[in-house]
């Protein structure tokens, strides 16, 4: 009964989405106030309805109602509670409901927090949100009904893919979707601006917090996914340039470019039509990601079901959303008047360079992701485009971006003084050289790529610290005064430095892990000890243990350093009888400086066990760097200047840069 109510509310939500997507547009065009006023109310109602549907689905999962097809296919009565909860979105139909729910959430948030938006503009934004909602609700109801019943109801379910039964994966999809779907607001704002033919600093100020929130969630969502891959897939890697990963990375790159170009629109009233285009492209790439992941074009953990009609439906949605918005763009964008001129060497120029590089990098990733699919579709040879391709194309494009970053974040608007900026970056440059020398002398590897990575990471990290110090005036005034000035800086200044520092830390972590990993693959007998990067690792025992819904073979590794015990690590091979699938759980011991990562494999005929032992330096820095970037987004969101309609104070940085 509750499931039928959920189905009904989902249908109602689609009707409301239709009204939300049409009447306010008409009302705004014809200046009919009641229809314009309808938009926020409809957005809130839609959110309420989708929430009810979501709760009905949650109820079915928690109560293990196996008369529902998706509960039967993805759950089991012995499944732990957390995974019954996360099982709601651990399948195609349910994840689509989550998608629509987050879309409605953003619509409701615009309705509630966008009080200072001009009413017709707000109505248009919400109408576009309504149209997107209409498309995806139709997709859900017509091709992927989450409330489909089974008759007769089975006694128990088939269980959830054990690889998905993991706390990291419980939170990865909602976070990622907050990012993907959050960019829909940037898209809706861009569409509304195109309809009105007007983009100004106010528009940029409205759109930025939404873009920022989406970017922050996407950053953390990707990091969670990468973390999950690292600690579950068992080969010590964290990023595989897998098409599914690229699908989430492309909107992130475009969204990062959008965040930067929106600043130019806000401060200098220029680069408008480019920013609008980026807003459209970012959400289009998010939709493309949804298509790639949901259509079954790619085979991966994410492709739950391959039903061709679904692929065609998403492709149609993608075509309408991308084609429609680009057509509107082609028609209206020429009317957008450019703002102030600027010299090539200026903050505007630096942000433009950032945008060009990020856009080109996005294009190479897009090419590498789609080319094998296109080639296959056209009947060409089957190829696989993997890490070597992306390392050879994406990484070189990041070099100029990272080199230019510290200088670009310090240079003045309109016309900059590059030699002056560089002279103030002397400290960071000296620090970078020191890090480079230290890496060349100390690190296990001396690969050129590794040294370049360390230099780039150190330059970005130290450059950002340097920038903050210069801005506070640490090199000009008394430190106590500079300290006071630092505390008085606007939060958005901190958030910029923090985000760039996070990027630097992330690069250092990635470089260290990718180039400094020590790997030992061997067969060990219980009691045997081997050396690994300065540690002595003993396979202490292998025994059988019983989990809540699995049986496991657990290997216990004792780790010593120079005879002193360091830690004990367990790696398990779990067997899930319901799903009849084995899953390997690596044993990991993390510190700030390194991870010890052990995997127990299969036994040999002579009683030894195949094991994989890794020493991964600075892994934590990757997660820490991504976390810093997310935190930076949060800090910036709490800046009062970003609040819509708040008075704009004089730029706090003027004193420092003048």
């Amino acid at each position, binding site marked *: 009964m509750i499931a039928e109510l959920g189905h009904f509310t989902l249908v109602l939500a689609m009707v409301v989405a239709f009204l939300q997507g049409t009447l306010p547009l008409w009302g705004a065009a014809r200046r009919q106030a009641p229809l314009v006023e309808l938009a926020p109310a409809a957005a809130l109602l839609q959110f309420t309805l989708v929430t009810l549907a979501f709760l009905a689905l949650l109820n079915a999962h928690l109560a293990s109602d196996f008369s529902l097809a998706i509960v039967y296919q993805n759950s089991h009565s012995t499944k732990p509670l957390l995974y019954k909860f996360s099982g709601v979105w651990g399948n195609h139909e349910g994840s689509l409901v989550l998608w629509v729910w987050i879309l409605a959430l953003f619509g409701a948030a615009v309705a509630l927090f966008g009080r200072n938006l001009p009413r017709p503009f707000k109505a248009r934004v919400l109408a576009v949100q309504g149209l997107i909602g209409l498309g995806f609700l139709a997709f859900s109801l017509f091709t992927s009904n989450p409330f489909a019943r089974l008759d007769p109801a089975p006694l128990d379910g088939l269980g959830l*893919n054990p*690889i998905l039964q993991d706390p990291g994966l419980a939170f990865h999809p909602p976070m990622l979707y907050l990012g993907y779907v959050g960019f829909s607001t940037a898209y809706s704002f861009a569409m509304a601006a195109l309809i009105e033919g007007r983009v100004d600093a106010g528009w940029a100020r409205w759109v930025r917090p939404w873009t920022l929130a989406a970017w922050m969630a996407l950053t953390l969502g990707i990091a969670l996914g990468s973390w999950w891959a690292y600690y579950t897939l*068992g*080969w010590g890697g964290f990023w595989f340039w897998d098409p599914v990963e690229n699908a989430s990375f492309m909107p992130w790159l475009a969204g990062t470019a959008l965040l930067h170009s929106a600043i130019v629109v806000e401060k200098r009233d220029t680069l408008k039509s480019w920013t609008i285009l980026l807003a459209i492209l970012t959400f289009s790439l998010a939709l493309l990601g949804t298509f790639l992941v949901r259509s079954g074009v790619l*085979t*991966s*953990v994410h492709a739950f079901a391959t039903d061709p009609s679904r692929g065609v439906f998403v492709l149609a949605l993608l075509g309408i959303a991308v084609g429609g918005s680009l057509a509107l763009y082609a028609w209206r964008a020429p009317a957008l008047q*450019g703002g102030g*001129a*600027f*010299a*090539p060497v200026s903050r505007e120029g630096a942000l*433009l*360079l950032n945008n*060009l*590089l990020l856009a*080109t*990098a996005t*294009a*190479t990733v897009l*090419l*590498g992701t789609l080319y*094998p699919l296109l080639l296959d579709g056209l009947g060409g*040879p*089957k*190829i*696989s*485009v*993997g890490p*070597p*391709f992306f*390392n*050879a*194309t994406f990484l*070189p*494009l990041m070099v100029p971006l990272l080199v230019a970053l510290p200088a670009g974040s310090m240079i003045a608007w309109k016309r900059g003084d590059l030699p002056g900026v560089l002279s103030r970056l002397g400290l960071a440059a000296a620090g970078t050289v020191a890090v480079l020398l230290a890496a060349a002398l100390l690190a296990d590897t001396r690969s050129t790529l590794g040294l370049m990575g360390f230099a780039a990471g150190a330059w970005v990290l130290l450059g950002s610290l340097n920038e903050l110090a210069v801005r506070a005036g640490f090199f000009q005034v008394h430190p106590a005064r500079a300290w006071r000035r630092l505390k008085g800086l606007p939060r958005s200044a901190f958030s910029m430095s923090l985000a760039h520092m996070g990027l630097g830390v992330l690069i250092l972590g990635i470089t260290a892990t990718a180039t400094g990993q020590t790997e030992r*693959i*061997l*067969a060990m007998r219980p009691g045997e000890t081997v050396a690994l990067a300065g540690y002595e690792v003993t396979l202490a025992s292998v025994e059988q243990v019983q989990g809540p819904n699995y049986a496991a073979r657990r290997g216990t590794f004792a780790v010593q350093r120079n005879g002193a015990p360091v830690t004990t690590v367990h790696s398990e*091979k779990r067997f899930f009888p319901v*799903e*009849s*699938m*084995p*899953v*390997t759980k690596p044993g990991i011991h993390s510190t700030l400086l390194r991870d010890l990562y052990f*995997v127990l*494999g*299969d036994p*040999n*005929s*002579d009683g*030894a066990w*195949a*094991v*994989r032992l890794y020493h991964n330096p600075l892994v934590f820095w990757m997660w820490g760097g991504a976390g810093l970037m997310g935190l930076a987004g949060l800090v910036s969101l709490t800046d009062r200047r970003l609040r819509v309609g708040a008075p704009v104070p004089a730029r706090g940085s003027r004193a420092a840069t003048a």
Partner: protein
Amino acid sequence: MGLRKRQRMIVVVLALALVGAAAALVLTAMQDKIAFFVSPADIASGTVERGRDFRLGGLVVEGSIERASDGSVAFTLTDGAGDVRVLYAGILPDLFREGQGIVAQGRLEEDGRFRAREVLAKHDETYMPPEVADALKRSGHWQEGAEKLR
């Protein structure tokens, strides 16, 4: 207006230079950084180039898995029209088993054996890599629904 025109020119030139550089990078990478998919039959016919990476897909022959004392594994892949011995130093994925369709990435050695750097057997026990399914279809060893029965 002159200033704006000049400004726009600089942007256009910069963008073109970047796109050119990116295109050059992509084209070079396409030369040697992508891996083609081959079947055991292709290797048996001797048309496969040595010394470059490719992906090999097929079914793991029953009883062919040998584990050496140093932790490395050897097994035979087949598509019905050809057999290839695969060497792999590492831990096989959880879903690797006899009769399973898998994909290995690596190089062909001088003695005709395939040294894998990576072995992929993904996701669930009913999954058949599409490339393997295609190879089996081409060699006439494909049975509709066979992957479900295993």
